[in-house]
């Protein structure tokens, strides 16, 4: 039995509560509040206490999907990424970078948001990037 606790930050609202994710033999089994974080001081809300439940939900996407004959079908990473990259390039070449738009995410990390806007601004020469800050 390998029991581990990993200190991390809650992915729900903007409070920034820290929590300990409890893993047993590589499976996520529970969530405990961090007592040392000055924000939540050993407390969590009902969403935070149950945050581990959605992570290993059977509904999670586990494979890339490509639309073929009108339906989304499983594909390899190579196939999906090559296809996506070539379609983005075709549209950029045919209509210019401003013909593409990018929605980044208030759920993703700073590092991911940074890379995503860099991809948009450098790769396509457009500032058509936004996210649901207003929503």
């Amino acid at each position: 039995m390998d029991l581990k606790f990993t200190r991390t930050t809650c992915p729900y609202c903007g409070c920034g509560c820290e929590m300990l994710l409890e893993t047993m033999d590589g499976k996520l089994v529970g969530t405990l509040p961090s007592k040392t974080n000055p924000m939540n001081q050993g407390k969590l809300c009902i969403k935070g206490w149950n945050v581990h439940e959605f992570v290993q939900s059977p509904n999670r996407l586990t494979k890339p999907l490509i639309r073929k004959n009108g339906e989304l079908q499983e594909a390899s990473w190579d196939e999906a990424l090559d296809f996506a990259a070539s379609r983005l390039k075709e549209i950029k070449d045919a209509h210019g970078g401003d013909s593409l738009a990018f929605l980044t995410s208030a759920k993703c990390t700073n590092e991911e948001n940074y890379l995503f806007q860099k991809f948009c601004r450098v790769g396509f020469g457009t500032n058509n990037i936004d996210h649901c800050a207003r929503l």
Partner: protein
Amino acid sequence: MTNSIPEIEDAECIFIIGSNTSVAHPLIASRVYRAQAKGAKLIVADPRKIQMAYTADIHVKQNLGSDVALINGIMNVILSKDLHDKPFIDERTEGFEQLREVLKNYPPEKASEICGVPAEDIIRVAEMYAQAESASILYTMGITQHTHGVDNVKSLANLAMLTGNLGKRSTGVNPLRGQNNVQGACDMGGLPNVFPAYQAVTDEGVRNKFQDAWQAQLSGKVGKTIMEMMHDLEEGSIKGMVVMGENPVGSDPDMNHVRHALSSAEFLLVMDIFLTDTAKLAHVVLPGASFAEKDGTFSNTERNVLRVRKAVEPVGDSRPDWDIICDLSTRFGLPMSYGSPSEIFDEIAKVTPSYGGLSYDRLEKGPIAWPCTTPDHPGTPVLHKDRFTRGKGLFHAIEYRPPEEMSDEEFPLQLTTGRYFPHYHTGTMTRNSPTLHSEMPEGHVEIHPEDASRLGLKNYDMAKVVSRRGEVVTKAIITDLIQPGNIFMSFHFMEANANVLTNPALDPISKIPEYKVCAVRVEKAELAEAAI
């Protein structure tokens, strides 16, 4: 937020307006309760009787979209009772005379006619807020999601400056941000007008700096906001879209329009952890890793930068979004190779002055609030301590403007929207959590008993809610927590989503849609409709 969360519990007065704090930010609500236990006064302004209203010293129920009239009325009383902070106004602000002129139009009786709050309550709120040594304003989307959302925020800033409640402990104007990293997504330049750290894309000096850092030609033209993107997709000038971890079909106003816009894309790429209703429209869907499966940082509502740490391996073949972006970008022809999120963070620190002093090493000891410009800078929990960013704080003289869509004969009721305690946003995470799902497995509409009896609706009857943009059939909950004439729905449930109905009219400056008010009518659903 201008101030930090722990400071809230030492405020003498807390003014919550347009924030369902115990539902949307439970751990901030607990700070409010603690402040009350220490003797703080609590004022709640909300059209619904939210949980915070039960323990408030005063709860005022303003009409939907009438916040400017309410706040101007409060400020009119503060001036007429000579409760304003004259030294603060003299030393740290400008534009006071213009504000004073406009406020003459809002004596409490006049403000009351517009906002529906009795004049004597406006006077009590003004006295309670202005007489406190330290008063903290907390607000959320109830303030911002209006066609006059910027006016609402500026009015709150006026109120805080008028009483000297800025730049010191336990005061301030504090927007509680609704998503774990909405602060960070903005900080990182996930906006059409700014690079990281709010550096304008139109500023040539700034652009040159980023061109050097990224070794690329960059556009100085401000890009499109979400709502403009949807319009341009439909109209055809935008052909392709890449969506990372967002579900605009569920979260944007006027869902039928959004669905049509996204379906018009020649190419739609969606990266997500679930097959959301947006992903269902995509040509390619890439499976991302969840927060528990990767390293990184989030920036919370008080500007604290916090570590996210990997606890388990990504499910199936899913991969962290940063890794997907690197791979996609490289195949696209723009090589990106970063060994780890920590390496990306070091680049962020180089080009983002407010994050300049931060590193994973420093964050290992605990969160740090930006601005943190150098490795020995301690971080900044309170903004505007001795001066405002622009020098002097500017009062804005603002007149009340009604919401875009008022009720009329055809649509006699007004819909407002929000969250419920066990759920979050479009429900993609919480509805996949069995415990949370069982707390509230389906959506509903809240209707006041007076309206319900006029409509012949009983508790749990199926109701059809219709706006100019669409209709939703859902269960009616008859409750006097809501005011007569208003109804309330959430956007957690795709099958009964308020955003089928909401109005995409925008604030002219912030481009935020008016989610919080639109005109609707309610009918008892026919049996056949109820079965759908």
